[in-house]
């Protein structure tokens, strides 16, 4: 009897192994396995709130990515050998969008609905690091992959990192490491700086990293740093205080509409004549909203169409064709790239099963999204990549297509940090399943 049951057990075990080898592991994890022949992606972006303009452009990038995944075109044809242009791993791709309203609680609720109601196999989105951190936490709990789009806080892939989250965008540490030498070269040592920063994880992260690098690398000293609430529309009182602080440089750690507001109001109040203004992170919609105020202002951007290489030019071309000649922003490129990176990892894994896709993404090296050679680091899921340092064009050269020039494309080697230091030192990814 014992012998018989052992033999039966071995037979069942062998059958299981054979099934696993032929059709893959079909054990339920997150929304895997996918029923039917359509895989749904959930795009959780801010279509309103202070980062609304960025979210709209992200959505354009996502929609174009899905179109190319199903029908070919853009980087699917030219840069991603793993992708066929006829769906992904035998399934057509569908998508569902949700508006985070730039609110972290709404974003988490959206993520829940996208996963539980719409059966999304992957979530992407961001703009606002508190949103990204909240959403990736929900994704980790539900074992659904989160491909972060625009999130720049050190914490996203630092102390709040998760196994199921990956970030292409660089972080505040990288920005500060890239900006400090450029600012030191431009304005010299011994400058005194004053910071106004958005009062949530991203702003706090930028404030801390800028303070660290401007002090240690550039030899500057901080006079004061003041937190401002996210969504502030009138910065005049904050700016008056900054103007009276005896500082030489004003760092405006604001993003989206907040950044456009603060830099415009600073210039209107005449601060540019007394101080140097720096906006550590900005982008195309923000520069457009700020108008001529962005002229001469240093900062970093996620990506820009002015980066002249084959993938960048192809993306700009494809985006323009898709959207009536519109020039894509950095957030749009991130959205497009992250969707394709996920799909390519699924193709390499031969399955949508999250742990297998994660292993394909970890340590993956690539050179196909317009930012040179990159690695998606295994220890913290943070892309190690070049950082574009930009400066606003002179007022008479600003146009609908051009707002800033690329001063330097700081290489990944110059700004990277070890797995046991900086933000990565606080990252514990957790188990695969």
């Amino acid at each position: 009897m014992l012998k018989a049951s052992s033999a039966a057990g071995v037979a069942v075990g062998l059958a299981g192994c054979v099934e696993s080898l032929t059709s893959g592991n079909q054990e339920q994890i997150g929304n895997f396995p996918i029923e039917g022949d359509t895989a749904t992606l959930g795009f959780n972006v801010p279509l309103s709130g202070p980062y609304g303009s960025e979210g709209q452009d992200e959505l354009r990038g996502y929609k174009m990515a899905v179109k190319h995944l199903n029908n070919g075109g853009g980087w699917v044809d030219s840069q991603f050998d793993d992708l066929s242009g006829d769906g992904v791993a035998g399934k057509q791709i569908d998508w569902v969008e949700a508006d985070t309203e730039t609110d972290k609680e709404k974003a988490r609720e959206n993520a829940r609905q996208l996963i539980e109601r719409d059966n999304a196999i992957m979530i992407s989105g961001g703009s606002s690091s508190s949103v990204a951190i909240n959403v990736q936490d929900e994704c980790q709990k539900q074992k659904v992959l989160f491909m972060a789009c625009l999130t720049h806080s050190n914490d996203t892939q630092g102390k709040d990192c998760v196994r199921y989250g990956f970030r292409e965008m660089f972080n505040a540490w990288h920005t500060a490491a890239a900006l400090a030498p450029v600012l030191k070269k431009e304005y010299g040592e011994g400058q005194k700086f004053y910071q106004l920063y958005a009062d949530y994880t991203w702003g706090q992260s930028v404030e801390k990293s800028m303070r660290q690098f401007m002090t240690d690398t550039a030899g500057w000293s901080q006079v004061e740093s003041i937190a401002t609430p996210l969504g502030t529309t009138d910065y005049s009182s904050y700016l008056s205080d900054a103007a009276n602080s005896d500082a030489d440089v004003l760092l405006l750690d604001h993003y989206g509409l907040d950044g456009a507001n603060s830099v415009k109001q600073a210039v209107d109040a005449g601060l540019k004549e007394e101080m140097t203004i720096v906006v550590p992170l900005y982008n195309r919609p923000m520069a457009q909203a700020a108008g001529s105020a962005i002229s001469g202002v240093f900062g970093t951007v996620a990506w820009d169409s002015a980066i002249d290489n084959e993938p960048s030019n192809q993306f700009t071309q494809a985006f323009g064709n898709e959207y009536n000649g519109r020039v894509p922003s950095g957030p749009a490129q991130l959205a497009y790239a992250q969707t394709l990176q996920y799909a390519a990892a699924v193709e390499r894994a031969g399955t949508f099963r999250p742990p297998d896709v994660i292993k394909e993404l970890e340590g993956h090296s690539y050179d196909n999204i317009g930012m040179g050679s990159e690695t998606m680091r295994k220890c913290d899921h943070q892309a190690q990549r070049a950082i574009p340092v930009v400066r606003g064009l002179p007022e008479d050269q600003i146009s609908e297509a051009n707002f800033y020039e690329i001063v330097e494309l700081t290489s990944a080697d110059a700004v990277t940090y070890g797995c046991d230091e900086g933000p990565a030192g606080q990252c514990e990814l957790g188990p695969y399943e």
Partner: protein
Amino acid sequence: MSIGADVISILLNGFQQGAIYVLLAVGLSLILGTIKFVNFAHGALYIIGAYLGLYVAQQLALSEGYLAEQGVANIGLGGGFVVALLAVTVAVFVVGLLMEHLVARKFYDRPDTDQILVTFGLAIIVQELIRWLFGSTSQPFGQPPWASGPVPIPGVAISEWRLWIIAITAVLVAIVYVLVEFTDFGLVVRAGTEDPEMVSLLGIRLTRPYIVLFGIGAALAGVAGVVGGPLSPINPTAGTDILVPAFVTVVIGGVGSIRGAVLGGLTLGMTQAILIQTGIPEVLFGIAMPSMIAGYNFAQWSQVGIYAIAAIILLWRPEGLLGREVTGS
């Protein structure tokens, strides 16, 4: 920097911040106090004013929305700021008349909740129409060339335009105040507020004064959109964002009181400016402050501060600073 310059800076910032609140609140307060109509579409009138003002004064650069899809890259008359101010005043006044005639009037005798629902719906329709037409991208609204640049006071970092906002607000509010307090029109409106039945029995129709008053309230919101536009880039949701501070101003000032709206707006503006620009010094009157609190800045309490001050005022005077106490018979 001297204490004198600090005080001037706080006063000017407080006044200019308060001026925008006042401009928004006066129209809202008049409609709420006299016609007893809760207008949640007040923010929509603000954003119509801002977009129309930008269109008339300068131009909109379009990269998304229906017009951009039709190949329109820029749209605007470039007529200058003064022309825009006049055009918006007239246009939004007419929008107000239409709104009163087609929507509001039918809801005068309905509960507040119905009024809130219909006007909130209207606000969303306007917001989405603007988004559909011009896209979501924030539009830069440049300051008029004759009012750009900082004020020439050392140690005070304020653009000249902000002083103009204080001046424009003062003039407009004074005109409305005179109209309501010292003219026959105002007398009829105030009498209608007290006892509409008696006014009707005297043979005076209240329909016309009410529609005009609604138009004036709307025009003030539109003007606030034009003068407030150059402070920060405008986008379709800007109208919703200003609604809460406007209502807070009305409530703490006293519903229906123009002087109350002015006092309420300035109280909020000044509270915000003081909290942002002050802190605990290292040394106070020659005494070194404990290291735990020395150098502490109150800026992070500025948002909380305006609601805290509102709560304190309402606890002390539930009818608002200059509102009239309502007692049961």
